[in-house]
């Protein structure tokens, strides 16, 4: 017992002794060598990189290097300023400068700089020789993004091929989607009941592809409602979306040959705040009692608030979104739900235009390529072929 107490007391004392005396005892580490400066690849031309050979006392020798400090100057004779620090064991530093002239971190393109590396051991350090001069310049192509470029090319080839094939009149099969097949019935029901149809585009803005995909569906549905002379109400969350939705619905009425019965005030703005928008749409559902509600686009927490209220109002409901967290609520509270990619496919289903079906086919081929990559990848990973994994590594 006494012994352990003694040890508990003595150990800190020993440690204190060593720690206090260490600065005098620690020898200076050897400096790093072969310092090379060069332009940072794949950037906008305001960054330089520097590499070096580790100090012999980093991880070996006296093993006392804890970090490297990177210093920079405009000429070898000038005073060097500290640009950053990396822990021991690292031998690369990106000296990222600013693009703005006013910024104090500004690093101009096409101007030479010199570097020096300091090996640090607590309070003492040693410095390397001065590096070669290097200047920064911007690149025309980001080599790290080649995998994405390959993806763009492959996918575009698929799309163009199938669009051409479809235009030539090749028949393309598409599997049925229950949500889409219900559209005609849903519009018919509204006509019989003499009640309007409600189309909710969700909380997306015109800068969401899901919303734009929903426009195409809205256009088709507007056309069907115009043929049936049924009212379609489109409450909007965003003003730009409202403008586009007005054009879309008007186009649908024109295609049906009924521009005379189009009413612009039926496509209207509510508000751009999530729950206030929900309150407005819910009120609309309870007071106008639409026969059918469509919820297609981007939806967040309001999905269930809308769908439940719609079911209280006794409407048939068709929903679809690419927000995975909201799909369970749509499945629970609406009659038909388009899941993820099905939302993007729906416009092709309603239009049955060959070009749209062609891109659908391209999407399928995209999936086939992904599946092949996954199978090959699983094999490669099981047998430790790292190179295959690197094919998909995108550097930013």
């Amino acid at each position, binding site marked *: 017992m006494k012994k352990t107490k003694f040890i508990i007391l003595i*150990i800190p004392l020993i*440690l204190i002794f060593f*720690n206090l005396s260490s600065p005098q005892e620690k020898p200076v580490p050897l400096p790093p060598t072969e310092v090379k400066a060069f332009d940072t690849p794949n950037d906008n031309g305001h960054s330089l990189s520097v590499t070096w050979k580790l100090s012999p006392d980093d991880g070996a020798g006296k093993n006392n290097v*804890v970090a490297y400090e990177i210093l920079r100057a405009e000429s070898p004779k000038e005073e060097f300023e500290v640009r950053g620090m*990396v*822990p021991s064991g690292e031998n690369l530093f990106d000296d990222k400068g600013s693009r703005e002239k006013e910024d104090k971190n500004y690093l101009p393109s096409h101007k030479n700089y010199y570097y020096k590396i300091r090996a*640090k051991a*607590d309070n003492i350090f040693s410095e390397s020789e001065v590096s070669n001069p290097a200047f920064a310049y911007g690149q025309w192509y980001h080599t790290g993004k080649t995998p994405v470029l390959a993806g763009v090319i492959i996918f575009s080839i698929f799309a163009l091929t199938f669009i051409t094939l479809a235009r030539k009149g090749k028949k393309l099969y598409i599997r049925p989607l229950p949500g889409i097949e219900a559209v005609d019935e849903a519009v018919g029901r509204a006509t019989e009941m003499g009640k309007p149809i409600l189309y909710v585009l969700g909380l997306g803005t015109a800068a969401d592809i899901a919303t734009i995909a929903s426009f195409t569906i809205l256009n088709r549905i507007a056309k069907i409602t115009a043929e049936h002379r049924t009212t379609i109400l489109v409450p909007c969350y965003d003003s730009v979306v409202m403008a586009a939705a007005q054009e879309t619905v008007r186009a649908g009425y024109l295609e049906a040959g009924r521009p005379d019965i189009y009413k612009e005030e039926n496509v209207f703005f509510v508000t751009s705040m999530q729950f206030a928008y929900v309150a407005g749409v819910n009120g609309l559902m309870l007071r106008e009692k639409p026969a059918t509600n469509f919820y297609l686009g981007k939806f967040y927490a309001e999905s269930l608030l809308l769908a439940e209220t719609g079911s209280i109002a006794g409407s048939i409901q068709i929903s679809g979104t690419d927000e995975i967290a909201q799909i369970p609520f749509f499945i629970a509270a609406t009659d038909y739900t388009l899941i993820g990619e099905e939302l993007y496919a729906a416009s092709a289903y309603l239009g049955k235009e060959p070009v749209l079906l062609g891109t659908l086919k391209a999407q399928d081929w995209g999936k086939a390529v992904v599946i092949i990559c996954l199978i090959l990848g699983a094999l490669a990973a099981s047998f430790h072929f790292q190179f295959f994994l690197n094919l998909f590594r995108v550097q930013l």
Partner: protein
Amino acid sequence: MNFYERMMNLDRRWIYLVIGLVVVITAIFPFDVPLYVTPEVRSIYDYIESLNPGDVLMIGVDYAPEVMAELHPMTYAISRQCFKKDVKLLLCCLHQNGPGMVEQVISQVSKEYNKINGVDYVYLGYKPYPGITILAMGQNFRIPFPEDYYGTPLDSLPMMRGLTNFDNVKAIINISGGSGTELWINFANGRYNAKLAIGVTGVMTSDYYPFLQSGQIFGLIGGMKGASEYEYLAEKDGYISRAKNQLSAYKTMPIQTTSHLVVILFIVLGNIGFFMSKKKKSRI
């Protein structure tokens, strides 16, 4: 219309009423929930329990006020447990909006237990570039933090004597609301082999189970649920007390439990009604 058919067509307002009443009644008359404590939370608690007076535990606090409700209870409970056991604390912060969070916890808890800054705990402060900071701390705490949060040089703090790097702390608990967690796992554990456990928000939880499986972290506190489990354990051993209102996460658990039970019950009842009314129909 028989009983089951009526049950199937129950007005939804009855359901609203039931769930509302359950929440209100439980809120007014709370009770003790015998919480099941998951092994990943228990392992952190037990490990801190096994520490001796004078040992040092490190807490990395990387979160901002937005996720305070979920993560603050963890930091509070762990620091109270440590101080009560005379375990010393080393704190640091790698989130730009986090320094105030640490300050809030440590100033309050140290007062409760009469702990002295620099002797019983050290707060290193905040540094940007979390990755480099963690790597540098693995070498020596003094590289990224020559001074503590209050501006005192580390070498003049009694607790820091003999405390060089991760090798000298018993374990690191990272409580985080963002991507910093991965850096702690990759660098503190991956490179310096530090004993690491994490506390994260509810939505992040499932992403970190693989690290538990692979042994890179020895414990995981996930969201409000994990925080309540920890508070539950700490309250049992008297480290925190209900009377002093120190159970901010556990407090809501009775309501969560009853309301979840009610929702499950509704699913079950709905299905009973569904199957029974179908049976009746097919008989006719």
